[in-house]
């Protein structure tokens, strides 16, 4: 029989205002096994913790029940407290009488009754608790960064700087991501390439950083400190170690009409290509969908012109397996597809472009060499209309319910740059709200309006219709003036909402990291642990966690790096002792548990058993690797004989809770 102490917390008035804490401790004091019960204003405070520690010593408590806030809040705190006086930390249970009781009920009698029941359930469980010992597992001193945009680059460089090996996996032929496509950055208007490319180069030159470009993660096994990751290096048909990046092949390839994705299809590239001049690694890649040699076996021109002999048409996809202690997700974003927004005529008119396309049209390395020209006829546009919130803050189901956060600022940037370079151009911006919360952001926006004379109009664009003469009719409402506007525009720029990259969802499944309904990765705590995933050892960097601009991305990237470094410097991790275990005497060796284990933690051994009739029998029985098991409990239900059970959440413990709850 346990000697149990019950500690009821008032949480100031958070609990005490709705729950009669005195009645709770008085009633629970009478429960079988309870030798001490009390209540106190703040159990989590130092004096509250001392109260618990003193009672453990004075009454020789073998089990502790805390009736307080959610165990997700302070279970760890209390476990540490009881451990400090020698009680096994797993001999403690928390009854959640705040979030799941006092805060949701108004009737004091009902809430008190419920608090007592929840306390009883915790007592019933603790009666059956057994001391558990946390194990230890080593940490592999290497990190993986998935995604080679500015977020991934910054994280990787910071980790490398601390002296740890770090690998970047990037699915494109080059790292750089979206930032490489951007012309200027707000609010400073400095050139994106000028600040990004040195970091890209640093990545290639830092011997702690290894870049797997044109590669994808195909499987992730293991757990914090000890992940095993398979990386598929897609065949680029060019030997990376031989290619000098001279670019000769990319000028000789006869396949000239391949849409250039770096320029968002606004111009063409060859079948063999280097995405852009500062690409890292600067290595050519053959696009197998267009290469005649790969498709029909006819051509081979690039191989002929390559003096380095780097072309290898027989190259195969290669799968590399590598072990890591930590994984950072930096998979970034894409603008949403605009097919659904028929009113903006994006797919019909070449002169209706997205903001990212506009970036390329204004970039010196872009398709127009930096001169802003209409994609349809190459003429200078004189009237440009910007439409904000295309698919953002959209609850109609067409777009995204969230604010994409960066559009207000980059549109101000675009408007300003156009007015600066082409003062004869009229610029209209239709917005719902202009959001500028950031250092020097509002000042930047005001400059666009006041100094550059950009026409900001609060209102919605109802219809964008191209006319036969090349003009685009924009029909909009001005909500402040309460009038309908008809603007003859030369170009329309849509601030398309951004969404997480499509590769994120399957990756999340592989990582067992959770996502929200918009496919952004969920953080372990929205305020207190914003760069960690709830899955231990998985960290978040950049827009994969939520929309953010470059400065925010970089700070989060560094924060994630700091967390990774903190993990990698740890010699050993303590493992969760709440893992499955097999009662070999009852195990049938049927493999049901093994089949449902997501971690491969269960293996089988042939063991000799002494049977009741004094004979020995060789039997196949399951064995759980406690370092690999994460304690989900799937196996415990798959096992028909009940040989599999879970520490901390055993069948008998859960049934005792059920009993206690249903009792009265």
């Amino acid at each position, binding site marked *: 029989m346990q000697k149990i102490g019950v500690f009821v917390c008032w949480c100031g008035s958070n609990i005490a205002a709705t729950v009669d804490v005195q009645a709770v401790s008085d009633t629970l004091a009478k429960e079988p096994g309870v030798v001490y019960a009390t209540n106190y204003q703040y159990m989590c405070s130092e004096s509250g913790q001392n109260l618990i520690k003193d009672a453990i010593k004075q009454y020789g408590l073998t089990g502790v029940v805390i009736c307080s806030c959610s165990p997700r809040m302070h279970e760890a705190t209390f476990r540490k407290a009881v451990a400090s006086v020698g009680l096994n930390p797993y001999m403690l249970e928390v009854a959640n009488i705040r979030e799941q009781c006092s805060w949701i009920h108004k009737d004091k009698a009902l809430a008190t009754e419920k608090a007592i029941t929840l306390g009883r359930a915790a007592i019933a469980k603790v009666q059956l608790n057994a001391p558990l010992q946390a194990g230890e597992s080593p940490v592999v001193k290497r990190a993986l960064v998935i995604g080679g945009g500015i977020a991934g680059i910054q994280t990787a460089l910071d980790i490398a700087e601390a002296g740890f090996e770090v690998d970047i996996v990037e699915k494109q032929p080059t790292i750089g991501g979206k930032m490489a496509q951007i012309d200027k950055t707000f609010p400073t208007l400095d050139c994106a390439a000028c600040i990004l490319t040195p970091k890209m180069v640093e990545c290639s030159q830092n011997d702690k950083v290894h870049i797997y470009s044109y590669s994808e993660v195909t499987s992730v096994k293991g757990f914090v400190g000890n992940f095993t990751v398979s990386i598929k290096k897609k065949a680029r048909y060019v030997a990376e170690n031989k290619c000098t990046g001279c670019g000769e092949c990319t000028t000789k390839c006869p396949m000239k009409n391949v849409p250039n994705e770096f320029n968002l299809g606004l111009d063409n590239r060859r079948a063999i290509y280097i995405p852009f001049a500062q690409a890292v690694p600067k290595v050519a890649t053959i696009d197998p969908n267009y290469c005649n040699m790969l498709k029909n076996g006819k051509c081979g021109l690039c191989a002929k012109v390559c003096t380095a002999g780097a072309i290898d048409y027989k190259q195969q996809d290669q799968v590399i397996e590598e072990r890591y202690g930590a994984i950072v997700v930096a998979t970034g974003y894409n603008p949403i597809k605009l097919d659904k927004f028929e009113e903006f005529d994006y797919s019909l008119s070449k002169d209706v472009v997205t903001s990212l396309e506009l970036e390329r049209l204004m970039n010196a390395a872009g398709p127009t060499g930096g001169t802003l020209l209409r994609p349809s006829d190459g003429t200078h546009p004189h009237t440009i209309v910007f439409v904000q919130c295309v698919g953002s803050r959209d609850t109609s189901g067409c777009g995204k319910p969230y604010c994409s956060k960066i559009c207000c600022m980059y549109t101000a940037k675009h408007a300003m740059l156009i007015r600066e370079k082409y003062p004869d151009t009229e610029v209209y911006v239709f917005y719902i709200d202009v959001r500028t919360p950031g250092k020097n952001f509002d000042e930047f926006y005001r400059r666009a309006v006041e100094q550059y004379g950009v026409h900001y109009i609060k209102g919605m664009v109802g219809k964008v219709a191209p006319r036969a003469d090349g003009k685009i009719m924009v029909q909009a409402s001005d909500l402040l003036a309460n009038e309908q506007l008809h603007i003859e525009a030369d170009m329309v720029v849509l601030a398309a909402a951004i969404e997480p990259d499509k590769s994120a969802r399957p990756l999340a499944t592989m990582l067992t990291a959770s996502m929200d309904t918009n496919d952004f990765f*969920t953080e372990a705590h929205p305020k207190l642990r914003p760069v960690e995933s709830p899955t231990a050892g998985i960290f978040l960097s950049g827009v994969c966690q939520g929309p953010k601009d470059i400065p925010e991305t970089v700070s989060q990237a560094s924060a994630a790096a700091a967390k990774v470094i903190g993990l990698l410097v740890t010699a050993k991790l303590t493992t969760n002792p709440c893992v499955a275990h097999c009662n070999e005497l009852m195990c049938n060796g049927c493999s049901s548990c093994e089949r449902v284990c997501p971690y491969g933690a269960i293996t089988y051994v042939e063991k000799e058993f002494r049977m009741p009739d004094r004979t020995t029998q060789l039997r196949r029985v399951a064995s759980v690797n406690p370092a690999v098991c994460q304690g989900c409990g799937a196996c415990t239900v798959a096992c028909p004989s009940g040989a599999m059970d879970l520490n901390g959440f055993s069948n008998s413990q859960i049934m005792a809770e059920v009993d206690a*709850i249903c009792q009265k």
Partner: protein
Amino acid sequence: MPEVNAYKPKIVAFCCNWCSYAGADLAGTNRLNYPADVKIIRVPCSCRVNPMFILRAFQRGADGVILCGCHPGDCHYTTGNYYARRRMTLLFSMLDYLGIEKERTRVEWVSAAEGAKFAATMNDFVSTVAALGENKRLEDLRCKE
């Protein structure tokens, strides 16, 4: 909220630690009401819930049992709720086949961000079960006082 003297169903809610239990906490943090008849049992994952626990709850006098877990695809353990989904589908179907009111059992996916959904779900479930009245078909008379 049920009337003062209205019949009070006993509801056991199994919530997975990572999503639904956190969702329930969020409902509390946001002060979203639902009846005190709902008592939550924390389990690591929806796949930890053995059909035995559900029957046990009914035996001991529960009038309704609800299982909440992460949305399919979001399981902290990747696949746990997929197994739970199959198990519960078959179990509930079997209970229905035996003529036991199917409305007494439910599975709902509630994420850590869905405090409002948690409260709404519980309100709805409690009123559904309250409308059915006491569990008579899967009770154990020995457990009645």
